[in-house]
């Protein structure tokens, strides 16, 4: 693969403000009632005064071993040369196998296009124009970093080497490409 695009979500910097979610909806014409991206503010956990929230990014994890691609009977779900889990709308028959198979519960049927939908790092909108994904572009506190880890000099490549990070539910063997820097309160100290 020529590129290995990833997003790093720094939960220390994230304030759960949903700017990312709104920008994604606007850029990608995501209809009401469904979403490609949200940040869930969970908690607070712990005992007062030592409380902490968790800021959990809910979006396609861009799995290297993607269950949605495996179950897709028509080849509509595929992994592109850029490593991005993508959808060919003309091949989608709306069977919803992928929606059921996604362990992160981030695929949905788009009520307007009737095609399976989810985050694709703004592949056919912003990336195509040479811009950063909408969520990264607007994030008020710079909590999101996007880039290609095949490029050793990229900020994401360096960050993943230097900062303690984790991925969601790695035990499933999905190899997600959304990396998370845990909050220094209550989590792994980085």
């Amino acid at each position, binding site marked *: 693969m020529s590129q290995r695009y990833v997003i790093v979500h720094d939960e220390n*910097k994230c304030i759960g*403000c949903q*700017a990312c979610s709104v920008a994604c909806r606007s850029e990608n*014409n995501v209809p009401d009632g469904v979403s490609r991206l949200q940040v869930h503010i969970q908690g607070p956990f712990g005992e007062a005064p030592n409380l902490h929230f968790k800021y959990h990014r809910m979006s396609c994890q861009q799995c290297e071993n993607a269950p949605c691609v495996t179950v897709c009977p028509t080849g509509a779900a595929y992994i592109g040369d850029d490593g991005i889990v993508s959808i060919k709308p003309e091949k989608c028959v709306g069977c919803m196998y992928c929606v059921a198979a996604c362990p992160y519960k981030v695929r949905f049927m788009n009520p307007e296009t009737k095609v399976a939908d989810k985050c694709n790092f703004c592949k056919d909108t912003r990336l195509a124009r040479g811009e950063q994904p909408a969520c990264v572009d607007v994030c*008020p506190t*710079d909590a999101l970093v996007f880039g290609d880890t095949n490029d050793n000099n990229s900020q994401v490549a360096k960050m993943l080497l230097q900062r303690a990070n984790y991925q969601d539910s790695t035990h499933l063997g999905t190899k997600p490409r959304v990396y998370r820097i845990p909050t220094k309160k209550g989590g792994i100290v980085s």
Partner: protein
Amino acid sequence: MPGSLAALEKGDLKGVSADYVASICEMCSTRCPISARVVDGKNVFIGGNKEAKAFGGKVCARGGAGHSMLYDPQRIVKPLRRVGERGEGKWQEISWDEAYEMMATNLNDIKQKHGAEAVAFSSKSGSLSGHLFHLAKAFGSPNTFTHATTCPGAYVIAAKAIFGTKLKRDLGNSKYIINFGHNLYEGINMSETRGMMKAQMDKGAKLVVFEPRFSIVADKADEWYAIRPGTDVAVALAMCHVLIEDNLYDKAFVAQYVEGFDEFAKEVKAYTPEWAETISDVPAADIRRITHEYAACAPHACVDFGHRATFTTEEFEMRRALYAANILIGNIERKGGIYLGKKAPAYNKFAGEAVAPVLAKPGVKNLPKITAKRIDQVDEQFSMVWSSGGVYQSILDATLEAVPYQLRGWVMSRTNPMQTMTDRNRVVEAMLKLDFIAVCDVYISETAAYADLILPESTYLERDEEIADKSGKNPGYYVRQRVVEVIGDTKPSWQIFKEAGEAMGLGQYFPWQNMETLQLMQVNKDHQLLKQIKDLGFVTYGQPLMLREPSMVSKFAATYSNAREMDEDGTYGSALSFKTPSGKIELSSTKVEKMAPGRGVIRYRPVELKQADELYFIQGKVAVHTNAGSQNVPMLSQLMSDNAVWIHPVTAGALGIQHGDAITLTSSVGTEKGQALVTPGIRQDTVFAYMGFGSKNKELARAVGKGVHCGNLLPHKTSPVTGMNVHTTGVKLAKA
């Protein structure tokens, strides 16, 4: 719904450009620089303007969702006349000519019979208030009001008393930030929010938060103290006590710049951390330790003086005490401290050359002389408030009790006192009593629902406005430009109030043709400058300057050959003066003592914000809504449409309340139904709700009846000197 966008056939959005257009957001009052582009004729992608470095080219959820208001079917796009009773919700579409005629007939009638001062004018500040207040002046009424006393007024008034002017925070360069419930991570102010996060995460600054609730800013803090509501002043005074008694204060700074230190030092002698602990529940040892840590970072440290300032009747003392804790470490005009904005005239003077263009102020000569006193001008103690937006809630007293005289008309623009002012019933009563009410808004807000006439304003994405000053440490300007062509039969407020003025026979006071003429007047007909500002959307000039910061001053002096000569210590410290009677920082003030006897020196006074058997009721901001203005915006309503009430598990348990249960809150003025959010993130003696929900008018279809209406629980109370509307009260909680 007559007059709403739903009644129009849905067409494609017509962008003014195929590319990005630079403009200014209006989803809250921070007004961040934005850059917007129409997507497929369907919606608008709104990002930050990358030219504005301090804002990082970023935008928050509210800013990003602005376009969802633009084509919201519930938006009003035709002038409406009330046809039923006030508040009944019966409307009839009328033409703009009919609307202006209705305004002219009613307002001129009041003027003739009772004088122009019998009409109050209130507006969200900005270009909007500029034009509405100009109409008020031309009409002859002194009674103009912004929302200041229901939100940020007190920190401005306290600053005026001490420094003679407003100050800014340099959080991005702070090494130690002490924050009293200024929730910059939910009440997002882009440059400050980013500055604080950078200071914390990239530069290792320490953040200490005193707040009754575990907010997002409390979560991101190194230390959080669940302070008793309204007692911040005690902790701030105890910090000042420690700074003075433990000899940690900047004596040279105090000697050179400060007036009234001795009186203040004498007063704070009694305010020990042990004393503050008994009032605030913040441990004395922590107050001492934090103060020492703070002083060790001086002068690159800051006590944040806050924004929304409606916590207590003692706002004036509280905000002044917060400034005092800054003054004592000498952080004024130092990196990481607080500083004065550097607008073009002052900056150019330091540089000895015209680094930044100075904009002209288009105005009109020979406006009628107004002899009537403002309704809030009778009580001398509020004299610093008059020029800062006035005591907003005094409109209610003047209407209901004719104090100091009878109001009969109210013209409003983009303001929603039915939500933000205390005691909703009293606002209703006042609105029912008035002879005539006109409201300019995008929606039929809870307040607009009681109007006789609704003037539909174009949203900010359809408006051009004047160039605005956005100077920080160096001069800067930016401008609002329309991103799409106007939808429906709406108009920008500058046009509405100009045309209304013409209909009222005041045309001579509105000599400009349109916004372009006004902009050209501002730039002294320098077309090239205007084009540059419009193309970039945001321009700054020169380099950051803080007068007492040697590194900045030496760089500045080296850049400009005719620059002011540096003092011996390599700063411009000798040029630092203040617009106070003494020209110094007035820690204690004879002027204030005269206005409000007993308040010349900052002093603690016990306050009773609730009865013993009640819980404190406090409110705050959430990142996806703007107080009372955004609850009906589709995308934001979908993110959050309700404000569940935060209740501590122990408090909830004692009343048999479980998470998600229906509950009631009852105060001295009202009862509200809501939902319980049981969380350890709140004090046991306090309940919290986000502001702006629980609308009671059916026109706001997405917001009606959802959540707790805060204004309906807060009694009418005004704090001394600052005129602030107090937003903390006592409530009784029960399972519904």
